[in-house]
């Protein structure tokens, strides 16, 4: 893969669960070095799209390429370069923090012990604490630690801030900023907290009922929606767009 090739390239991806269409002809190209915000209401298809990127769902039609590879056919080639934090945060509760670090380190030759220790200390995580005894915010911090410590080429965050307090949300945004501080690294994160997306994303894709209703650089979106000198927030733009989409669907 060349340095200019997109990190993620999705073409005409359609996914159905029984009779329900979760994704409809989604086409997306995420360039290297960008912070890509995926926004949409609950159930819009954000997680389904991310699960395709991780290879956890097989494309029923269309194609998904990550680093130029098919994530289903080559899970090792793709997953070894991705740092992933899920909304569910399903880290094994029986592991101690230090065991989880030791276990995760085995999968990534580029694991940076000093960086991991720095993150552990800054997040105030006890090495001997079992994951199941941690609070939701601490679990999210452990998740960030093991997603960041090997400086992945692509950081994928699926609703990372959902249900978390502002301090942990700040840590997550800090993780995104740390990642992009390293040249050429890419972030894909989904959220329905649009003010967060506004803070860090440089490209926003709005998804509604499995269809992309808007996808453009954030600055462009703002400019396009300027009315009489007033630049609307992403919240306002989202409501306007999703409302339009719903009306179009009804008509």
């Amino acid at each position: 893969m060349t340095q200019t090739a997109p990190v993620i390239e999705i073409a005409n991806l359609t996914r159905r669960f029984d009779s329900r269409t979760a994704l409809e002809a989604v086409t997306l190209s995420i360039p290297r070095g960008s912070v890509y915000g995926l926004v949409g209401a609950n159930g819009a298809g954000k997680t389904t799209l991310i699960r395709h990127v991780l290879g956890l769902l097989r494309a029923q039609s269309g194609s998904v390429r990550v680093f130029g590879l098919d994530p289903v056919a080559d899970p090792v080639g793709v997953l070894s370069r991705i740092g992933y934090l899920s909304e569910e945060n399903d880290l094994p509760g029986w592991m101690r923090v230090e065991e989880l670090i030791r276990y995760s380190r085995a999968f990534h030759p580029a694991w940076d012990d000093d960086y991991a220790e720095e993150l552990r200390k800054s997040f105030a995580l006890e090495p001997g604490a079992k994951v199941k005894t941690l609070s939701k915010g601490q679990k999210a911090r452990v998740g960030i630690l093991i997603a960041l410590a090997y400086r992945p080429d692509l950081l994928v965050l699926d609703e990372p801030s959902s249900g978390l307090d502002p301090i942990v949300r700040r840590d997550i945004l800090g993780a995104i900023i740390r990642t992009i501080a390293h040249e050429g690294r890419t972030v894909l994160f989904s959220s329905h907290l649009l003010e967060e997306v506004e803070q860090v994303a440089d490209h926003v894709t709005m998804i509604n009922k499995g269809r992309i209703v808007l996808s453009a650089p954030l600055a462009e979106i703002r400019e396009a929606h300027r009315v009489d000198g007033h630049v609307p927030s992403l919240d306002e733009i989202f409501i306007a767009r999703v409302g339009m989409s719903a009306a179009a669907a009804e008509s």
Partner: protein
Amino acid sequence: MRSAAAAFGWEFHARHRWGMIGVVVYMIVLGAVKLVVIARGIPIYLDSGESFAFVVMVPLTATATYFLAAFTFGLDGDLAARQSMYPLRRLTLPVTTNALTGWPMVYGSAAMIVLWLVLRTFGIWPAGVEVPWIWPALLAVSLLAWTQALTWMPYPLPGLRIIALVIWLGTIDMIALLGLHFKAGEWLMIGILAPQIPLAYIVARFAVSRARQGEMPNWRHPFASLAQVGHVSSGRRFRSPAAAQAWFEWRRHGRALPAWVAILLPYEMVLFWAAGDSKSLVFTILIAILITPPFVATFAAAAVSTSSSNAGDSSGTTAFVATRPLTDAELVAAKLKMAIRSTLVAWVVVLVSVPIALEWSGASTLVIDGWDRVRDFMGISRAVVLSLLILIACIAATWTQLVQSLYIGLTGRASLIKATVFLAIGFFVLFGPFFEWIADSGRLGEVWSALPLIFSALVAAKMIAVVWIGQRLFQRRLVSDIALFTGAAAWSLTVLSLYGVLEWVLDAPHIPRYLIMLVAILLIPLARLSAAPIALASNRHR
């Protein structure tokens, strides 16, 4: 729904609808057999131990176990955890602690009583046998009530709940066995068992009350330093990602089998002291001990076969496991390695403790005497090889039991898993009576003659499955070409070795060599193991 009782009842019904329907269907069939067939005077010979066990005892014991799990909410919780297994959601319901404790006990007790009455009415063949009506029902209810009390109790140490359950339920069972042995009267047994139920209720109420208030004693601090023994420091690295995953699987599932074997063995070994000079009894106990690890492995396999890292999530695969940068074959290989380690540890426990128990109890002289007879009959070399073969077969059977259902469990399809379990139970229930029917009808000779044909058909089916699976493994690139070739070569070599050993040990000219080869091919697992990566891939990349 206007009352807590109705709400509790409805929830049990909604949650366990299909299980209960299955139980009711079985009870109706049992009743129909007795009422229609026997009432018409058509003779049914179900008086052998095996038939009675397969048709009546196995399904009803399974049902009783299911009731224990359902009415204690044990299907949701972690038995080894410190916290109460009473569902947290229910603790916040606006009802009294008496209601929270009482209604599950009432429904569970009613289910147990109905189960016993059905067994007593329809399951006793022939009907003339004297079986008491009341105290076995009380035994079932008290076992359920104490299981509820002990599972709902918060504990100061992890794993203490299992110890408490084994000791206390074992004690109640022992009382019942002593009652049977000494032919205790019904009223005496009622007098012993009836007070158990209110006692269990009081303990259960106390447990639910503590759980409701979030009280959980903690004795872990004095043990913290002990826990650090053998605790690997974070500085030590795994050799490879595969080694890390093998460690993950060992920590998650590997210790259950050795632990359960270690818990069960003392109960079996204590029987050496009771056996006295009875050689047959000593050898029966030895056989029981030898089949304990494979038997326990059958149950441990249910956990091993899940692809999830969370015990409660029996189907599907968690994103944490699915996003490990490992191939599907490597994830399966980690489970296979863990199963090898788990099997070996379990057998080390057996092989170390049994000789000590034999020597200590004085039963070793009987075993040595038996061994001398076998040696004189077969010759020393054949006797040694046969003994080793039996031991290796038991060890291999333990490992096979742990991993042979991976190809079902790793699909994560709950309906497929349940259907397989029901099919397996159905097979075992029908196999005993079917075999007995063959024996009784004098068809054993015909079956013996047809064995080559039956084995050939099974081998053909196995080979067709292997080819189909091999093609898919190759087409989907789930396993490398070298791994496929190495696996096939290793399997062929093992089959040939087994054939050679069997041929030499049996030394029976009347058994055709091809039959021994067919047996060797059938004994060495291949198709189901090879299908495991396909099952995981279909689950991991849905």
